[in-house]
């Protein structure tokens, strides 16, 4: 056989396999043979090829019997038609000799090492068959001191093999640049900051370095790499709206450690400080473990049946005496779809009122409404995967590196690589530091600024005429209104120079694919809905909607804002966003729930507080919502809580609000549920003893309330 450029085949140990374009030898072999077909040390699934350990070397020939060349497989592309030999005598010897050199400067105390049996060096050393180290004793770094200064991160550089995986993870994944190699050659070593301790450094404790480290040189206090577990459970983090997949190690129903799986599209082996380390609440002694009923002013432990009976009795009394509208429920954007669905169903179908609300309506309802008006539906138009296909990002009113760390890190990577990044924010956020354009507008002037961008896109002739003609309505009058605006006036209002806005607008409009992201800096304004509509207009006028890598993306605050709204936890819309006040639609709900469903206007959260203070609201059921802590005007909220005849609080801990409760029900955390949230995954771990998933007691409760469950939900 002769070398043929056109072939899409290459040979591994004599057998032909199909090639993918641009594939490295290592990925080619892994894909066609097995993930561990080639030993590696410096390679990691979420890092760029680096080529330092050379353990992955293979022999490659351009013809079947031609001369062979030794090449590191991790960074060498496969030549079509080439012959790759993975385990020749020469290669076996090379790998063994490299590992022998590594072991000349590595402690040989595997049995007492934290990562014994979980160490990549140990595995590779065993695999290449090291029996002894032939070199005479020489210089080494075995006496390097441990760094145990940090509450989570640990470092023991005597175990370091200089593979740079930690440095690369800190750079390529988190973008924090806290770690680097220092010095050179044999004495080079990892440093944090200006060679300070972990604690003194700017480390954000994301743990990416520890997860990347193949030995125990960098680890964490939970010894995540090596903990012995009864089972590993895959779940979805609920700390923010990103939806990182997590792999939880469980021993005796206790969470021992958490790692981020590499095969999760959302987080690809990464997560943040909270996702990785903030799990000690789960087994915390302060967790509420049994229902509590207030007796003689004191919350006293009770059985579940006692609690259910108590609640049912009180609710029936109140409903009879004051009517169903004296009862309200506040659901939670931190809970699952199923729980939220049941909560609104309980309030509507069992109690018979539309007094159901949750924070999803408060924080991102302008997104829902604005995008519904613009596009017909109010949800993100993309998955995070689309970032790979976009050429420009517009981030407005959001600080994702703080609020959505894993997505934030991806956006930061985008900006750090110099790809056009426009940040519209009064604050110099972390992303703004790296952005191409930072439009530091005056707070509350989003509408004016977006109008400026639209104006310049039109005056520069950068509209997508075909998209506008085929896919939009009313453009002519929209254009006339935009062009009638006075840019000097708007520049004065926003405090941003016209030229800067013009350049940013051009960058957004000229990018082949542009995506926008917005957060609460957009929605939590009186003009939030209009701002969302303008963001949508920007996308439409430039044709940036409807393809991979383009679109409009709200960055949701809590993990299930989307799901809570979808499930109907808001007074004016039932499940599926159908109008709760429309008699025709109501018939469908009634037919489905097989009972009378109210049609009267329900109370929003602030109205509930007013109604309680005015004596109209008598009972409030809170599911995972600490209103005393989080809602504005604390004194007023407290007063509202105190006025109630019945306050039911479902919680993990005794929150500020729980202190005012008549009944407290212990809740299950996200580790203890098996239901869904609307992001990218499913949650699935065991429940702690004595707590119940919110849905379980919803079902229990409906029976006590005299409502009979229909099939399914």
């Amino acid at each position, binding site marked *: 056989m002769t070398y043929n450029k056109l072939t899409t085949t290459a040979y591994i140990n004599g057998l032909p396999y199909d090639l993918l374009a641009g594939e490295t030898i290592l990925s080619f072999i892994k894909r066609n043979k097995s993930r561990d077909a080639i030993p590696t*040390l410096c390679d990691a699934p979420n890092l*760029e*090829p*680096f*080529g*330092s350990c*050379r*353990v992955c*070397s293979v022999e490659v020939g351009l013809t079947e019997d031609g001369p062979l060349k*030794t090449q*590191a497989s991790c*960074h060498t*592309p496969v030549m079509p038609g080439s012959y790759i030999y993975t385990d020749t005598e*020469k290669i076996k*010897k*090379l790998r063994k*000799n*490299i590992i022998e*050199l*590594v072991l*000349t*400067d590595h402690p040989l105390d595997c049995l007492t090492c934290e990562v014994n049996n979980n160490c990549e060096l140990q595995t590779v050393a065993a695999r290449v068959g090291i029996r002894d180290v*032939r*070199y*005479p004793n*020489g*210089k080494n770094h075995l006496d390097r001191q441990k760094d145990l200064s940090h509450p989570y991160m640990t470092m023991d550089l005597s175990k370091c*093999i*200089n593979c*740079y995986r930690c440095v*690369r993870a*800190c*750079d*390529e994944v988190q*973008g*924090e*640049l*806290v*770690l*680097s*190699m*220092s*010095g*050179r*050659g*044999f004495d*080079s070593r990892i*440093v*944090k*900051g*200006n*060679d300070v301790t972990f604690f003194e*450094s*700017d480390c954000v404790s994301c743990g990416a370095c520890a997860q990347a480290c193949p030995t125990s040189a960098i680890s964490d206090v939970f010894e995540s790499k090596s903990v012995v577990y009864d089972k590993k459970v895959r779940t979805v983090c609920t700390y923010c709206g990103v939806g990182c997949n997590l792999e939880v190690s469980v021993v005796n129903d206790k969470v021992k450690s958490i790692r981020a799986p590499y095969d999760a599209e959302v987080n690809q082996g990464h997560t943040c400080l909270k996702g990785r380390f903030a799990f000690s609440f789960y087994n915390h002694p302060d967790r509420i473990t049994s229902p509590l009923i207030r007796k003689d002013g004191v919350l006293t432990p009770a059985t579940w049946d006692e609690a259910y009976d108590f609640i049912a009795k009180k609710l029936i009394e109140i409903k009879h005496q004051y009517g169903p509208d004296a009862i309200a429920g506040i659901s939670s954007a931190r809970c699952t779809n199923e729980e939220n669905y049941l909560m609104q169903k309980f309030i509507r179908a069992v109690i018979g009122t539309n007094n159901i609300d949750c924070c999803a309506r408060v924080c991102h309802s302008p997104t829902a409404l604005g995008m519904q008006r613009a596009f017909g539906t109010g949800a993100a138009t993309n998955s995070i995967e689309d970032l790979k296909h976009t050429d420009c990002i517009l981030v407005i009113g959001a600080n994702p590196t703080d609020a959505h760390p894993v997505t934030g890190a991806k956006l930061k*990577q985008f900006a*750090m*690589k*110099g790809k056009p990044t426009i940040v519209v924010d009064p604050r110099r956020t972390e992303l703004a*530091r*790296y952005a191409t354009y930072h439009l530091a507008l005056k707070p509350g002037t989003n509408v004016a600024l977006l109008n400026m961008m639209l104006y310049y896109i039109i005056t520069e002739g950068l509209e997508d005429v075909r998209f506008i003609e085929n896919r939009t309505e009313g453009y002519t009058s929209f254009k006339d209104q935009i062009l009638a605006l006075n840019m000097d006036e708007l520049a004065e209002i926003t405090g941003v120079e016209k030229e800067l806005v013009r350049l940013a607008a051009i960058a957004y409009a000229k990018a082949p694919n542009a995506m926008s992201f917005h957060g609460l800096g957009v929605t939590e304004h009186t003009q939030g809905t209009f701002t969302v509509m303008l963001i949508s207009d920007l996308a439409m006028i430039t044709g940036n909607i409807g393809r991979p890598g383009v679109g409009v993306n709200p960055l949701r605050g809590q993990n299930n804002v989307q799901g809570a709204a979808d499930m109907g936890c808001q007074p004016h819309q039932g499940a599926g966003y159908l109008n709760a006040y429309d008699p025709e639609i109501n018939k469908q709900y009634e037919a489905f729930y097989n009972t009378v469903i109210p049609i009267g206007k329900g109370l929003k959260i602030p109205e509930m507080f007013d109604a309680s203070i005015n004596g109209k609201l008598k009972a409030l059921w809170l599911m995972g919502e600490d209103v005393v802590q989080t809602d504005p005007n604390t004194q007023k909220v407290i007063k509202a809580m105190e006025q109630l005849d019945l306050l039911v609080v479902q919680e993990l801990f005794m929150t500020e609000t729980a202190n005012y409760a008549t009944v407290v029900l212990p809740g299950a955390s996200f580790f203890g549920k098996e239901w869904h949230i609307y992001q990218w995954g499913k949650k699935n771990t065991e429940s702690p003893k004595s707590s119940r998933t919110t849905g379980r007691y919803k079902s229990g409760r409906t029976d006590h309330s005299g409502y009979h469950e229909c099939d399914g939900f």
Partner: protein
Amino acid sequence: MSKNLSHLSGRQGLENNLFDQLGIAARSSGTPDAEALDKLQHEFLFGKANIYGTVSFYDFLKEENKGKRIFICNGSSCMTADTQDNVKNKISKEFEPSEIGEMCCLGRCHENGSFHYEGRNYSGNSIDHLSAIISEHKFISDQYTTESYGTPIVTVPYPDAAEYYQLFLECLKKSPDDLLSELKISGLRGRGGAGFPIAFKLGACRESPGDTKFIVCNADEGDPGAYSDRYIMEHRPHALLMGMLIAGYITGAEWGVLYIRAEYPESISIIADAVTQLELLKLTGKNIGGSGFNFNFKIIKAQGAYICGEETALLSSIEGQRPEVRVRPPFPTQQGLFNKPTVVNNVETLSCIPFVMQKGGQSFADIGKGKSTGTKLVSLDGYFNRPGVYEVDMGTPMAVVFNDLGGGFKEPVKAIHIGGPLGGLVPLHKMTELTLDFESFSQNGFLLGHASFVCIPDSFPIVEYIKHLFKFTAHESCGKCFPCRLGSTRGYEMLEKATTTDYKIDMTLMTDLLETLEIGSLCALGGGLPLPVKNALQYFSDELKMYFK
């Protein structure tokens, strides 16, 4: 190397260069202070660790360099010439030990006895005038012979700049493709050691998409024993600059970067003067000669790291990153300086371009032998009767170089280390079998490299020489790849132990180590060290066998 850091560094453009700033910050005390580092870290959006990592890499930036005032050359030629003990003794009388540093090869291999003081190099008998040098800033220039054997291409004298650059203005009237095809015809190959055809690189860079491209001149002539690039920079600077201008015109690059080693202070100032001259003649800047072509030069002073001669390490160095060797692909012509398409070429290679443009590619190709076209500069060290830089046609018999040009040896020599520390160690009896070209050397198991000649006299133990090579590699290894970082030190330790105790080296282990370095290393530093060591083991086995079991 970090793509993020490459980009962040490039954001500031070349005018405000991070690596430059670090050098400036180190000027007064020998290392930048914390305040300066903090400022630069914020300005360039680097992490503190990144800047710390960079500073700690370089001999002339790192903390240990603080307070150093005078530097003694520890290059191979000064070592075999045995001049440095005397230099050190005399310097020690005037300076505290903490004030004395080392520099690896000041390029004064023709006179030896070299040292560096207050931005100037001294050699030969200068050490005898040390007190005058200190008190009166007495300047003593060095002397060496420069001759051509065959066609002078690089050494040919040129007229004054205004006239000389008419050639460049003529080039601007032709299409870049025409100029590129002349270079293809010429067969000009890289003179830095690898011998890669320049037309291929320029063509690849020209084809790479992007508005921003760079021509980088690798003037980090770090090979101990070599000083031919220094000769060009100090005596033919305009041949080099014109070569870069033409390369820029061919590729569409608007910036030429000259990365010149700190050990060559005179080269830096002469090149700077030549660039100023071009500015005055309006041969740089916007729309040169009304052609629409824009080009500017940036001189970057290196800070003492041999690895920066490796092209990808050099690019990271300019970016202010740690100069660690990058993996390829991407090649510099695709993603080089600041992630932009870049051509990196050696001084001598670029300096050949004006000749090719003036006389045509064929005239260049007619000189030389086979695939080694044109001429080559060779640097002969102080063991020759007529040390100096000679330009010879490729394919010239080595006997001519030695006897007719070098004038024979001052004292008996048993081997010559040709082509830098990673070149072959050629025993004298093999010398007459060689001709001076890439092929002859590689076919005989040696390497032409940069064609530097360091003589090893009969009296100098070969074991000490290969120990020196391991030590040199261990000191200069960037530390990125495992074989070089660990293997160079372990090799040195074995030789040190064998020469100072009754320890005998296991020959199988040494062979394994050499093979691991050769086929396992990421770049030519670790990969090249085995060649001279294997040459020594082959040709000087009698001398070496006592150290092995």
